[in-house]
């Protein structure tokens, strides 16, 4: 018998690789574009990818109990998956591409030697999905932790880009050292131009998580996609019709098992009737690798039976158990005091919804942190409770909120940060500044300073200067101008804290109190100004 691989499927496989590369490049391009490019308003950024994600759409809509119009794009993915199966995972998903490429590298370097027969349970991702969906019913949005778009965007924004920028900058020292001043200038110009933020408190931990996820590919090909990805699980459940069905020509098959051994997602092409269409990502590897060209994906219009959608033994009890786990985990996330009482350091980006609505919508993708021109937006660790892990929080010591900028509000994919114009944004209070007189230079050291007042961007300034007496150690009393905050004018942008020359613990600092978004965390109650009218009439 003639032994020849299928030219058609080798071409299709190449096309799939090209598609992956294309979508990954587009994703990167859009993510890099989420920055100040010279325009006050940026049009389409990487948030569009998120709108095609049915998991984020479903969980966000359910947990926030509100329809988000831009998530209509997710219906495209749903329709494609119902008709064609998980092509999204195999051909589009940028995190899937990263995993597939690293798996390929591990295979080539023999770190990964796939066994003839893989038996590990594929059910875990479905249970993870059920936990997420059940939690969403009670208003808890955990989708961002494991959703591929959120995971990748967060990892790139807060770990990979910063590390690359740091590395490039260090390399630049060498370039300058060699006397190549103009090359060095181009590199630093490029770094400034792309506004790659380099400081992230959690950058190391988040980077380690990405490395861990990639390292798992040395154990099993596309480990994440097979066992962890809740979006993949949702798409697996949706892949009902599957127009293109795997078919092995029994006359050609030599039962070598190569197809099953090298299946990226453990979909078990051989034997034919055990093929798991809900696991197949249509990477075309089996059909392209088959030494006799026995495998094909002819079109057939008949729905799959549920059992053969995944052939994954989803034990009913385990499904119920995971849903219960999702339900009962919710109260544990809510044991923190932050829902009842605002957190001191939880300064949210301008335009953020009130805290509970914010948490229900935020998918922790970190695009706002990528777009922030001052690097001030950071992934939260404990500031917002366990529910708020990796949600954005402004850390003024690292960066302040730029007065004429509303980029973070423009890139948010879910509307957790409401989109604002520059004019609207400059009216929003995100907190209030407080002078720490016991550390302030004119108050205790008896020297002039006024740096906070100088930087205050509002006009008239929210920081006023008054004569203050400093009682010095030698008994002298010195008078200089010291800062006092006018809380009605202060918007909490934090530039005063950022620029304060008292470096370790600034003598002026911002806390969340007075934020516009909260009707509890208020400072000044607006009394109806028209006193002529009787308010009780």
């Amino acid at each position, binding site marked *: 018998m003639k032994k020849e691989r299928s030219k058609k499927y080798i071409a299709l496989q190449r096309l799939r690789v090209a598609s992956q590369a294309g979508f990954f490049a587009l994703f990167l391009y859009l993510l890099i574009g989420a920055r100040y490019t010279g325009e006050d308003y940026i049009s389409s950024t990487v948030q569009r990818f998120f709108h095609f994600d049915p998991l984020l759409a479903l969980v966000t809509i359910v947990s926030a109990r509100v329809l988000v119009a831009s998530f209509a794009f997710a219906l495209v993915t749903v329709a494609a998956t119902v008709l064609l199966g998980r092509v999204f995972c195999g051909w589009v998903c940028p995190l899937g591409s990263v995993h597939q490429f690293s798996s390929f590298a591990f295979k080539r370097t023999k770190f990964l030697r796939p066994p003839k027969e893989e038996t590990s349970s594929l059910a875990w991702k479905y249970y993870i999905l059920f936990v997420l969906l059940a939690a969403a019913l009670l208003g808890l949005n955990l989708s961002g932790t494991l959703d591929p778009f959120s995971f990748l965007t967060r990892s790139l924004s807060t770990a990979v880009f910063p590390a690359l920028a740091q590395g490039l900058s260090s390399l630049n020292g060498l370039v300058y050292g060699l006397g190549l001043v103009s090359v060095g*200038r181009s590199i630093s110009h490029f770094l*400034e131009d792309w506004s790659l933020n380099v400081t992230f408190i959690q950058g190391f931990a988040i980077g380690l998580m990405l490395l861990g996820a990639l390292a798992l590919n040395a154990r099993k090909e596309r480990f994440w996609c097979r066992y962890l990805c809740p979006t993949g699980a949702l798409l697996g459940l949706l892949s009902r019709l599957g127009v293109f069905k795997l078919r092995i020509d029994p006359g050609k098959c030599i039962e070598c098992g190569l197809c099953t051994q090298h299946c990226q997602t453990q979909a078990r092409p051989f034997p034919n009737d055990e093929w798991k269409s809900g696991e197949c990502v249509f990477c075309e590897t089996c059909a392209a690798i088959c030494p006799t060209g026995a495998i094909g994906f002819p079109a057939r219009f008949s729905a799959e039976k549920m059992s053969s959608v995944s052939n994954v033994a989803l034990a009913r009890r385990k499904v119920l158990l995971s849903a219960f786990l999702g339900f009962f985990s919710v109260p544990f996330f809510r044991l923190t005091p932050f829902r009842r009482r605002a957190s001191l350091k939880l300064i949210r980006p301008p335009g953020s919804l009130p805290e509970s609505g914010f948490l229900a919508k935020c998918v922790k993708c970190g695009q706002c942190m990528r777009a922030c021109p001052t690097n001030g937006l950071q992934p939260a660790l404990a500031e917002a409770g366990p529910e708020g892990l990796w949600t954005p929080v402004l850390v003024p010591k690292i960066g302040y909120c730029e007065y004429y900028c509303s980029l973070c509000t423009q890139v948010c994919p879910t509307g957790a940060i409401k989109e604002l114009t520059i004019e609207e944004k400059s009216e929003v209070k995100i907190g209030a500044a407080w002078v720490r007189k016991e550390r302030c230079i004119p108050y205790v050291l008896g020297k*002039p300073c006024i740096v906070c007042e*100088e930087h205050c961007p509002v006009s008239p300034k929210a920081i006023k200067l008054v004569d203050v007496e400093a009682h010095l150690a030698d008994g002298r009393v010195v008078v200089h101008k010291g800062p006092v905050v006018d809380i009605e004018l202060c918007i909490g942008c934090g530039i005063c804290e950022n*620029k304060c*020359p008292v470096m370790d613990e600034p003598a002026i600092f911002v806390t969340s109190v007075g934020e516009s978004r909260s009707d509890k965390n208020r400072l000044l109650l607006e009394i109806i100004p028209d006193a002529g009218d009787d308010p009780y009439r």
Partner: protein
Amino acid sequence: MKRRDFIRAAAVGGIALRWGRPLFAGQAPPPVPDLAVVEGASPYAITKEVVASLGGMSRFVGKGDRVVIKPNIGWDRTPEMAANTNPEVVKALVELAQDAGARRVIVIDNTTNQARRCYIRSGIQDAVKEAGGTMLFVDEQHRVRKMALGGTWLKEWDVVLDVIEADKVINVPIAKHHSLCQLTLGMKNWLGAIGGARNQLHQRIDEAMVDLAAFFKPALTVLDAYRILVRNGPQGGRVSDTELRETIVAGADVAAVETMGASLFGLGPKDLLFLRLAHERGLGRIDLEGLTIEKRKI
């Protein structure tokens, strides 16, 4: 473009008239003034005129020089807020330096807000690009070095290398209100040519300014008082914080330029410590009576 062409033609005409006069009338060329003050509706034209009044850019910039122009681009503000130097003023100077034979004209400032935002929104990046100059960002990590300043108070500080490597430096500040030194004019602008913890200099800001001015030694100081910031300085925030004065003051003597600039705010050397310190350090004259001042209106 038409208006711009007209202004350019007017400026060229003005220069021609000035140099043309001795030819036609047979007079001796007038002496070069210590200070030039030009008023007019176009910041671009009055900048060109002010340099012409001082005897032209070739007095300050030689052929093949590497020139650094140091405007104030400290803030993320648009030109009508008068927080940064007017972009048309910078543009005119870049062109003049190039016409005088400069090999390369670099415009740079160590900004307070994000550099990219300041460069773009001040309008200066586009203006410099149009004029054919180069805008550089300050590279705090590699292009700033601690060096001896020889100041009376500031002995050493981190200095931006791109500035001190230039053959000629032109200082182009904007006249603004400042709540610590009352005004920020020419010398204060040098805080944008250094790195490090600049906010600590406020403890003795007047001495720091004078020490820096003595160190950088600009060939020419061009003070932009086209639109001045009269309150809420040094960044303002509303157009109502500014006043339109349509004036440019220039000269090689920074103290004299600043004294003239301060008079626009109704202040003099007796009000401003940094002016008296600058005079004591021999940086220039603060008595305008003894100076030759060329005043023009176009």
